[in-house]
């Protein structure tokens, strides 16, 4: 039997990984140019956290995990704007480049191309004592990196909803020429939003890496794509995107917890969230079509 509190504990940890990346993706969608590279940026965040964390400590790891993907996202957008390259293709290029680059660098940084565990980089659970409270205890049983990831997700959401940059991003997505006529550099706005999405994906990756305290090749394992799906399933709205991320987090948590109580192979259980999400996307689209 799956205990509700254990299920929620895992679901919130999964949400800490999915929500920042999804909200980062939503930011670029607002700006009219969806960042397809969420998966690669998440991986860049995980690698940066482990590489810089191993060399300079946890705080430096988290800072690098946000700055490095942010710079990659900004440069990729700059490239697509200045070189007239399609942002979709550039995003795919980033998704191919990051795992290869991380694998090459891993050999030099960790001395191995495979899994590299670094002592001291697994985040602790600062409020573990309160985790035994029924149901709501799951909120207190998380790792410190998860709280940091939620903090960044809230910050990005506030930037989108409450600041001039958020308003300009939406304006850039609706009518770039109108923004330019108002004397605002629409390219600069898009660049800033891309950097923000990189930052959000980076903290997602860091939360993933710090939950195990190790670098595992391709550890994002499709979560960046799920974040992208959450943007669409959530109707390209902040609340909807967060709710869709929460749904996927719950499905992933169910698949993980089910491994302990059933004889079913782990791979089959892990495939279920992807199939169920696809079904949800189809049903959601069908509903929109009827409207």
């Amino acid at each position: 039997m799956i205990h509700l509190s254990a299920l929620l504990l895992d679901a919130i940890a999964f949400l800490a990984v999915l929500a920042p990346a999804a909200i980062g993706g939503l930011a670029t969608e607002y700006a009219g140019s969806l960042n397809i590279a969420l998966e690669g940026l998440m991986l860049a965040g995980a690698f940066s956290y482990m590489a810089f964390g191993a060399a300079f400590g946890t705080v430096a790891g988290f800072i690098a995990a946000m700055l490095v993907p942010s710079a990659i996202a900004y440069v990729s957008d700059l490239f697509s704007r200045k070189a007239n390259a399609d942002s979709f293709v550039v995003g795919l290029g980033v998704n191919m480049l990051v795992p290869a680059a991380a694998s090459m660098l891993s050999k030099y940084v960790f001395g191995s191309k495979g899994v590299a565990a670094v002592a001291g980089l697994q985040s602790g659970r600062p409020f573990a004592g309160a985790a035994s409270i029924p149901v709501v205890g799951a909120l207190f049983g998380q790792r410190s990196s998860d709280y940091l990831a939620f903090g960044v997700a809230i910050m990005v959401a506030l930037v989108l909803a409450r600041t001039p940059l958020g308003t300009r991003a939406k304006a850039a997505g609706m009518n770039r020429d109108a923004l330019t006529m108002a004397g605002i550099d629409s390219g600069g706005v898009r660049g800033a939003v891309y950097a923000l999405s990189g930052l959000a994906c980076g903290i997602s990756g860091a939360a993933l890496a710090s939950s195990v305290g190790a670098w595992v090749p391709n550890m994002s394992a499709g979560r960046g794509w799920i974040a992208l799906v959450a943007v669409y399933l959530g109707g390209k709205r902040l609340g909807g995107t967060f709710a869709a991320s929460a749904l996927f987090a719950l499905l992933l948590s169910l698949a993980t917890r089910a491994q302990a109580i059933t004889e079913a192979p782990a791979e089959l259980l892990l495939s279920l969230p992807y199939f169920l999400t696809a079904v949800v996307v189809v049903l959601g689209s069908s509903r929109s079509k009827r409207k």
Partner: protein
Amino acid sequence: MISPVLRTVKDTGASSTPKRLAIAVATAAALAALAAAALSGEPSTALRAFFVAPFSNASSILNMVELSAPLALCALGVIVTFRAGHYSLGGEGQAYAGSIAAAAAGYYGYAALGPGATLAAVVAGVLAGAAVAALPAMGRRFAGAEVLLTSILVSQGFIFVIDWAIGGPLRDRSGNLIAMPALETEALLARLEPPSTLTVAPFVVLILCVAASFYFERTRSGAAHDLYGRNPRFAELQGYDVERLSWAPVVASGMLHGLAGALMVLGAKGTAIRGMSGGIGWSAIGAALVAGSRPSAVPLAALLFAWLDSGARQAAVLSDLPPDAGMAIKALVILVVSSRPSWTAVKAFMRRTPTRRAK
């Protein structure tokens, strides 16, 4: 709906296909030389592995041609979907499904069919690829679900399932490799020029590329396919069968990916190995882009990527160059080929730079 900018993917990059291919070859060669010089402690060995070893004898060249065949088929599949405005990212799972189905049909069907199991394996591979693509296709047809999202999700789900099947019930327990039992030699495609691995696969690719070129350039259906990709509403107003175009290209692409998976099994691999698709779905999108979404250019684009794979693998064996260098170079080639800097902007930048410095 994905933003309209995605509908211009096939127009991205250099305007003419030969120019685009030339840029890709030059970029790949320059990056390979740079990687060999910068990342390897034995640069001359790495350079030889990239630029000499793959062309050192007829057998090496034919191996490379054989290696390019599955990639070319996947790239052709990508073109079929992209030109219809569907951005299917599920090629990886479709090719992997083709591999396992072909290996199962080839291995278990051999007792009943003998050498006829080869054909059964090809058919099974094609059908398996189509089946994986059918879910996103039906989602698009009946619910208007975005293929980009459903294809990646379904593909990822099937990759888990196939990993389980190869590592579990279908695994050959006699060896350490996580793979299905090897097919009988008679069930594999005949090697045309031993000791090379060349089979009939590259010729199948050429025939399909010519057929696809003819379809897109010379037929009314091909014109409708392209028009739907650019503007579905306009295609509908022209009286074309847009309902069919909303799903058929996705399934056709799945069939091509499935065929690619089957040819991998029936060619050099000899069976289905866990993780054997190895990023072919993503490389195929790059190859399709290098080919400018033109089927006639696909064999050359796939050959370029096969050379990068082959060179990187040889460089990793002969020197200390990381094997992932090949994938990194492919990604950078994609980025360079996708760019189309406007000469006006470049000139303006050149004029502006000295002024800024003077200030």
